[in-house]
């Protein structure tokens, strides 16, 4: 387990309080035990890897959202960005395998660009990020519908779907290692490294107290903008994986911004910035996905699942908040 700078800085008393990964880890273990009782073969390596594969997009989105949240901002545009990316991919590739890789590059570029615009509008024009990214959400949804005339067109190539669906076959014991899991590991490693670098320390300082960070010589605007760019890039990667999983529709990314923010908060990261670790955020996403899997196993219908999800999030965050007070 990695120890984040945030946990290092905190006194022993608050190891279970806000910003710590321990509470989410405890919930995750509880959920995993519950799954083990209900369905032991969940822990067969291939099944477990398949589960990780399904979880990868949300974990990647949560990692991206973490950078924005820990700097004290929000990114509400990621869900619509995911939808836009998948719709763009389908229309640009239009079933042509040779177009796959240029389009993947285009998608990554588009995600980074959207993040850059979010960041610049927030930092240079002083628009609260909630509004900036809400505006971006409206713009992306509207633009995608306008561009396609109301229903997605074109088709993804099989080559494009390889990233989301396939993996390295014939690995002893594990069976298939999905590419999605490898991409997830790479993103996670990069995220942890980024938070350990100077960038991460400045980012935490900015989220904790932007004024103090600026007076101390931190490039506040630059760091915050970079956080948005990272979030946009993560949304692009998540979209490429999600596009591989399923069909092309306007619903691919619907609500993902809220799910990602929920996951980050579940991971002990405080809205408003300055506290929490990226590992916690990713664990939060994994926990949320585990919860949904467990609800599925228990036969809780999809509809009621959102109610249970809401209840558990409220409980988890309430316990975290009360612990912080005592």
């Amino acid at each position, binding site marked *: 387990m990695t120890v984040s700078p945030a946990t290092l800085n905190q006194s022993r008393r608050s190891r279970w309080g806000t910003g710590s990964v321990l509470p989410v880890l405890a919930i995750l273990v509880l959920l995993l035990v519950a799954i083990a009782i209900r369905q032991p073969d969940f822990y067969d390596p291939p099944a477990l890897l398949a589960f990780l594969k399904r979880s990868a997009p949300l974990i990647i989105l949560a990692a991206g959202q973490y950078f924005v949240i820990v700097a004290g901002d929000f990114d*509400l545009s990621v869900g619509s960005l995911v939808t836009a990316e998948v719709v763009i991919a389908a229309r640009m590739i239009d079933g042509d395998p040779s177009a796959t890789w240029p389009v993947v590059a285009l998608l990554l570029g588009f995600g980074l660009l959207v993040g850059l615009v979010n960041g610049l509008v927030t930092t240079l024009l002083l628009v*609260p990020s909630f509004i900036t990214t*809400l*505006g*971006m959400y409206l713009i992306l949804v*509207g633009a995608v519908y306008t561009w396609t005339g109301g229903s997605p067109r074109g088709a993804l190539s099989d080559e494009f779907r390889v990233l989301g669906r396939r993996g390295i076959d014939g690995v002893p014991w594990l069976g298939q290692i999905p590419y999605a899991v490898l991409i997830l590991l790479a993103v996670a490693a990069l995220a942890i490294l980024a938070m350990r670098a100077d960038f991460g320390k400045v980012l935490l300082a900015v989220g904790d107290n932007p004024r103090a960070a600026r007076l101390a010589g931190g490039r506040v605007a630059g760091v915050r903008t970079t956080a948005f760019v990272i979030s946009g890039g993560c949304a692009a990667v998540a979209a490429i994986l999600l596009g591989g999983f399923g069909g092309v529709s306007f619903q691919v990314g619907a609500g993902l911004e809220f799910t990602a923010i929920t996951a980050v908060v579940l991971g002990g990261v405080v809205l408003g910035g300055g506290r929490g670790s990226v590992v916690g955020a990713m664990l939060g996403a994994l926990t949320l996905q585990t919860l949904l899997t467990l609800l599925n196993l228990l036969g809780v219908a999809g509809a009621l699942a959102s*109610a249970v999800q*809401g209840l558990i999030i*409220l409980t988890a965050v309430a316990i975290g908040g009360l612990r*912080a007070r005592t």
Partner: protein
Amino acid sequence: MTALPATFRRPRVDSTNGVWLALGVTLIVGGILVATDGGSLFGQNSTISLLQRAAGLGIVAVGQTFTILAGSLDLSVAYVISLTSLIAAETMAGSDGRILPAILAVLAVSASIGLVNGLLITKLRINAFIATLGVGLLIKGYLEQGYAGPAGQVPVSFQHLGYDRIGPVPVAFVLFIGVAAVAWVVINRSRYGHHLIATGGDLDVARLSGVRTDLVLIRTHVICSICAGIAGLYLASRLGAGAPRVGAEGGYDLESIAAVVLGGTVLAGGKGGVAGTVGGVLLLAVIDGIFNQLAVDPFFKQVIRGVVSVAAVAIYALRLRRKGAA
């Protein structure tokens, strides 16, 4: 109005009246555009549908103004609208005699949801974003579990609210202006209103000055939910039945926040007011109306909404900074 200072000052364009200027410019430019296209923005039919559209979002946005002024926000309003439209239609069940009980039931349920939101935020110290999102998820789960489509029936006499008009002005729009007027008096003339502004301006300072901030926040959330309930009543009357997805599909949660912020209320709380919100709602409705008249791609107007919201806030923020620097 405050007493005039001894020296005459030109009215300043600031965040609270800037929206009216924008509205005026939009009306003139839009009117000319529509006229050159051969239509009329100010014809009776287009005016009626414009005001009709403004009413629903407007009532929700008035409620949202309270939460944002308090430095909070309410993401559950969309689901409260759906829920209360169903409660109204199912309680009435097509009979005239049950209109009053239905209205009372809607007010009671929406007030209790507001109470829960308020208690979660103040007593359990859950961030408002997460608390109201969680409560929204709970209601969403209930709605999706219990209802597949429209349910209940509204008697013809109750449909007067949705369809009647006084001259060219729909009754619902009068209701919206009435709600806004009451809200204006409450915010500007009551003790609670002053406490609300103080709480939103600086929670700690307000508390140390003897304001019972918890109580203020709870009341605020109750008011906001009741407004969403009134909007639910209106939509039930308009649709003739309760609809489980009317709130979420209308995007009332994020759009009401956009309307409030467009009206110059600062997202961080403590600054702004209901008058600006009315302007913001009208501006969004006029933009809608212009696009309908010009028969522009309906999806494209969402892009414009996004751009307008962000641009407006950017202008307010930059003016505020210049004033601060001077």
